[in-house]
């Protein structure tokens, strides 16, 4: 049967109304009416106008938070992932064990569960004052939690890529470096890492895109990112298909931009012969 649905794309362009549509009479104010619901006919609610709320601004705000959360998380991912990834290749057994444990724990526990643990469980495990600070005094606790959680989750994946990149370099190069009198650190700094980072740009790209998409999980702890705002618009207007279509298009746009930038970086820094580069 044909779908019964009133398409209305215009709700997506709603801006804040010129004047506040809500009147001076507060609904249900004590003594303002006779019924249980206080106001009776005097109740003022959102007007029937198409644009009861600034939905356009909600989308813009949602998109900005998606980008902010994903980019901040990526800073953690990249730095922590590099440290862990390098740690997995060093000779010291303890360091390697710690790094391996990190990767296995953060990679194997579902992101949604990690989000809940960081947000609901960690503050309860801390001393009362610290827990209270996390819950009440820290501004925007859900955003910080989401950034840390996303960053640490993806760091486990980036770490594996860094390790793979380092291990892809023939061991002879390390030996050659050491034979030349370089220290272990210098071998990493001047021989291994410059090459391995270039090799792993393609998987890093998909991981960076993954962060953008996974940032939508943060809505479960109250981060008002793009998916959350789309849901919000869908609930307010019931124009569900429009709200989620715009979210889909925006996610695709953002990831396409990421791909384009990374392709550019890849082409700029590549070392001929180390990586098969498509598209040129």
């Amino acid at each position: 049967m044909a779908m019964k649905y009133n398409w209305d794309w215009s709700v997506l362009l709603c801006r804040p109304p010129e004047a506040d549509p809500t009147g001076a009479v507060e609904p249900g104010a004590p003594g303002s009416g006779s019924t249980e619901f206080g106001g009776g006919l005097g109740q003022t609610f959102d007007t029937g106008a198409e644009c009861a709320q600034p939905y356009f601004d909600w989308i813009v705000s949602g998109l900005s938070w998606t980008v902010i959360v994903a980019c901040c998380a990526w800073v953690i991912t990249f730095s922590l992932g590099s440290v862990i990834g390098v740690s997995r290749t060093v000779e010291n057994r303890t360091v390697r064990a710690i790094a391996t444990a990190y990767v296995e724990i953060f990679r194997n526990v579902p992101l949604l569960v990690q989000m809940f643990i960081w947000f609901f469980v960690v503050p309860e495990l801390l001393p009362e004052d610290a827990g209270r600070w996390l819950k009440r005094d820290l501004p925007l606790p859900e955003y910080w939690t989401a950034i840390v959680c996303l960053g640490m989750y993806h760091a486990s994946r980036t770490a594996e890529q860094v390790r793979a990149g380092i291990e892809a370099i023939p061991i002879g190069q390390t030996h050659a470096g050491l034979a030349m009198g370089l220290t272990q650190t210098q071998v990493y700094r001047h021989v291994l890492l410059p090459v391995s980072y270039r090799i792993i740009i393609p998987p890093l790209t998909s991981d960076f895109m993954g962060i953008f998409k996974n940032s939508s999980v943060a809505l479960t702890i109250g981060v008002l990112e793009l998916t959350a705002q789309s849901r919000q618009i869908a609930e307010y207007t019931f124009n569900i298909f429009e709200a989620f279509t715009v979210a889909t298009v925006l996610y695709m746009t953002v990831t396409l931009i990421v791909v384009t930038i990374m392709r550019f970086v890849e082409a700029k820094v590549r070392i001929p012969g180390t990586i098969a580069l498509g598209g040129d």
Partner: protein
Amino acid sequence: MFKKTVILIAAVFALAATDGYAAELYGTLKKVKEAGVINMGHREASVPFAYIGPKGKPIGYTVDLCYKIIDKIKATLKMPNLKIKLVPVTSQTRIPLLANGTIDIECGSTTNNLTRSKQIDYLAVTFITGTKLGVKKGSGIKEIEDLNGKAIALSLGTTNEKAIKRVAKQKGLKIKYHMVKDHPQGWLALETGRVDAYATDDVLLYGLISKAKKSKNYNVVGRFLSYDPYGIMVRRDDSAMRLLGNTVLADLMRSGEMQKIYDKWFNPGPTKINMPISSTLKTAFEVQALPY
């Protein structure tokens, strides 16, 4: 020529006589008749409106009402063995699934408002509630004004969220909002002290308290901050289905059976929610008990 016309007229009469109502069927009733099955959409955790009972089947106040409507559909279509397919829905999926025909009727706790009516139609109002605050006892919070400088959890996209933000804006209250995905999370935020209050429909607050670990530590406070009438949803532009549903509900309201079904679920109800019928809802039943 004359003979042909007679045959044609006879055929038309025969069709009219045998098919009667069927010739007029359209929309949901036609779809149900052709498919031999009605798809009932239901919520899974809207206690006690529509939730999964001990036997794994959806039960509840609204579910009971939906079964009464389906009985009437069976009688109207003369299909006593009409199959009922149960489809779980969430607040996000209920509209698309109704619009695209996956479900034919939605039974849950959906607020009937005019904006939403652009996409779907509601049957008569079956329950009336409004936004109140769930707080910890001893917190000293009695009204929304007491939340100035404090934190409140709000469920994303609900009419409650709108109501709280509107009143806070009007009164110039500085309240920290914490958005949550669903009721259990809002309650968890209150339990763990992340917020000082959780705002939602008062009936849902009583339901949450009745299921809380330490029920005695919480209570519901404040005046009603919004007016939320619940309704069963059907597809839009389908007067026949809507009339059928409203006839069933009007019959129940007129005969007093509606109040009995209400008492079964709310007074005290299987979840011990203990909510005697409010005077507003009682009046609503009286007003909506339309005569034939």
